[in-house]
């Protein structure tokens, strides 16, 4: 099976450690994942702000980059949702406007796109990925992974199988954190009000790490946790699943976080 990593534009530019963690994790599980160099962005920032025409080049580069692979895996519920639910919409509109008429067929012919937890549980059939992470963790199910993709209990099952990890319940877990892409800027006050409640719930758990499957949401929640000097850090699910006794030893030795090349969020 030829598997391609869609790292996402946010991870590529801001959180390369998450991409590296996915690579390390999948290699450990025997998947020789490739990174098609032509990839850029799924187009979601444009689509969700109403700029459908501006999303056409991104969707085109997406389908070109991943053509010929058997599966695309991405560490983002939101971007997986965009590929599955929005690309056809963008392509249809482009065709209606006489732009890129081949895009509709190219989108339809593309390989299936899986969010990381879906790929691990459904395609590889694993829940114990051999990870070790001796910390108290709480999990925020991001809206698009929860409601657009329906990943359900998959991330929790993966986390519950991590050695040393103590998973604590997040109150109001299914409530949106308030990120919402450009919503975070266009309606910053409301976004922050929503984030404040999410952060309060995270802190109530007493967890030292907040984990989620979308770094964009974590950038928002983590940005507030950091501003409060809360002492709670955020990590992508991939980084926890990639952690082993070896990486933890490195972490302890250097006093740095394992696998989060992006630094504090």
């Amino acid at each position: 099976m030829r598997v391609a990593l869609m790292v996402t534009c946010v991870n590529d530019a801001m959180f390369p450690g998450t991409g590296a963690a996915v690579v390390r994790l999948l290699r450990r599980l025997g998947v020789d994942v490739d990174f098609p160099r032509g990839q850029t962005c799924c187009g979601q920032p444009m689509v969700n702000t109403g700029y459908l025409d501006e999303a056409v080049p991104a969707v085109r580069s997406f389908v070109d980059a991943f053509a010929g692979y058997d599966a695309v895996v991405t560490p983002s519920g939101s971007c997986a949702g965009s590929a599955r639910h929005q690309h056809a919409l963008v392509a249809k509109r482009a065709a209606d406007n006489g732009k890129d008429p081949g895009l509709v067929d190219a989108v339809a012919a593309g390989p299936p796109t899986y969010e990381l937890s879906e790929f691990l549980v459904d395609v590889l059939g694993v829940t114990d990925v051999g990870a070790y992470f001796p910390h108290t963790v709480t999990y925020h199910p991001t809206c698009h992974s929860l409601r657009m993709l329906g990943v359900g209990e998959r991330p929790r099952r993966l986390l519950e199988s991590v050695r040393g990890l103590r998973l604590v319940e997040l109150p109001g877990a299914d409530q949106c954190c308030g990120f919402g892409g450009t919503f975070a800027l266009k309606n910053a006050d409301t976004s922050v009000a929503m984030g404040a409640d999410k952060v309060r719930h995270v802190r109530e758990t007493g967890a030292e790490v907040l984990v989620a499957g979308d770094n964009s949401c974590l950038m928002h929640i983590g940005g507030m946790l950091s501003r409060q000097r809360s002492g709670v850090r955020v990590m992508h699910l991939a980084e926890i699943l990639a952690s082993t006794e070896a990486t933890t030893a490195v972490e302890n030795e250097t006093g740095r976080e394992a696998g989060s090349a992006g630094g504090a969020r």
Partner: protein
Amino acid sequence: MSGTFVGMPKFPGAAREALADTQLRYNLAHATGTIRGKRAAVVGEVENWEEVRLAGAAVKERALLELDQRLMQLEGALTARGATVHWARDAAEANAIVTGIAQAHAVDEVVKVKSMVTQEIGLNEALEAEGIAAWETDLAELIVQLGGDLPSHILVPAIHRNRAEVREIFLREMAKVGRPAPAGLTDEPAVLAGAAREHLREKFLRAKVAVSGANFAIADSGTLVVVESEGNGRMCLTLPEVLVSVVGIEKVVSTWDEVDPLLRLLPRSSTGERMNPYTSTWTGVTPGDGPQEVHVVLLDNGRTRALADEVGRQALRCIRCSACLNVCPVYERTGGHAYGSVYPGPIGAILNPLLKGTGVDEQVDSLPYASSLCGACFEACPVRIDIPEVLVHLRSKVVDGHRDDRIPKPEAVAFKAAGWAFGSAERLAAGERVSGLAGKVLGRRGGRKAQVLGRLPGPGGAWTDARDLPVPPTESFREWWERTDGGREEDDDDRT
């Protein structure tokens, strides 16, 4: 006496003000939390809920696709049963019809059943301008009306008020328009309801003309249906001699049987009840029983515009249950007034632009953006309106409306540039090298390794005012991939 939504600021500004109202925040969090819990419990007991949802959506969808035929059928059935049918293209026409009927009977007051559509057209204000008082008889609408306030929720229009505030409004205002609140009024819900009952009773017994809306209009029999919880609506529907019902044209369904899934969906989704307490139905005039003069005003007011929108027309399936408001994290914090319409929350964010059109009013154009697209509304909607899909669609209509602007908005320029950059990995990589360089510079300020950026100027400030932003990494993922041969040559240092 009542307030007006005219001249409301755009959503972000109105929301900022509402978010600072601590009493509002507390009242709403408490009220929506309670209703959410009740709804979840009673929806959870219906094993085939998804099937009923699909059936309800199909009933409404079918009626909308055959709307012209169903409306003619409804008119025929109503007329045959002694009702007078009026057609109104817009609010002004509908208001003139209702006012004319009231004037023909030389009344100076009407009693009203809780109705969203009469709020939509501003009927109370239109009647007031002609010297006719319109008394709201739904308890929550009465609170809003007495308080000179605006509704902030479709089902519970006074959701932003708590019982202490209600007591104050009753004590202060009831005497000005009728029977005063009793001395020694407490804020016990039963006592407050008792005061409202006494106050309203004299109006019910006196009124010659009543005005209602309708939840459903059944085309083949000409029957109108009103669903309510208090029985006050039934007082209005049965006691006065003349009944005028203003009905949006999207309320029509084909047959009685088709009301079945809708009556199962509505109470559980809206009040969290298994069955609706007061369901009133009437078919034209019944000699010797109830109103002997029955008028039905069929109203368009933007509905055919919405119907013409292939993506947006699903919003016309809405049965006004408010489930989307109660689960919406934005609504829960800003309340309904910030939406500047009698239709607030997620459904309001799509319905207002669909009814009024985009590109006309900046306030209306701001509504599709009043959502984080979290999808909780779609999940809760009993007739499966994909609200996030319609929100994104309407955003594209707002953007398209500005494509010919002589001076494009900074946002449009930014997205054009982003679209260009995302068209090629080389262009994107070049951008990332700039970001990496910035990371190197910004990460070393003051000789110490910084982890977060300070406050940013311009639009970036909207982020950094309340949230830290990490310093960009010095190496992008694609650079890491090249340097380490796809992670095959990474060393321990790469793991930091």
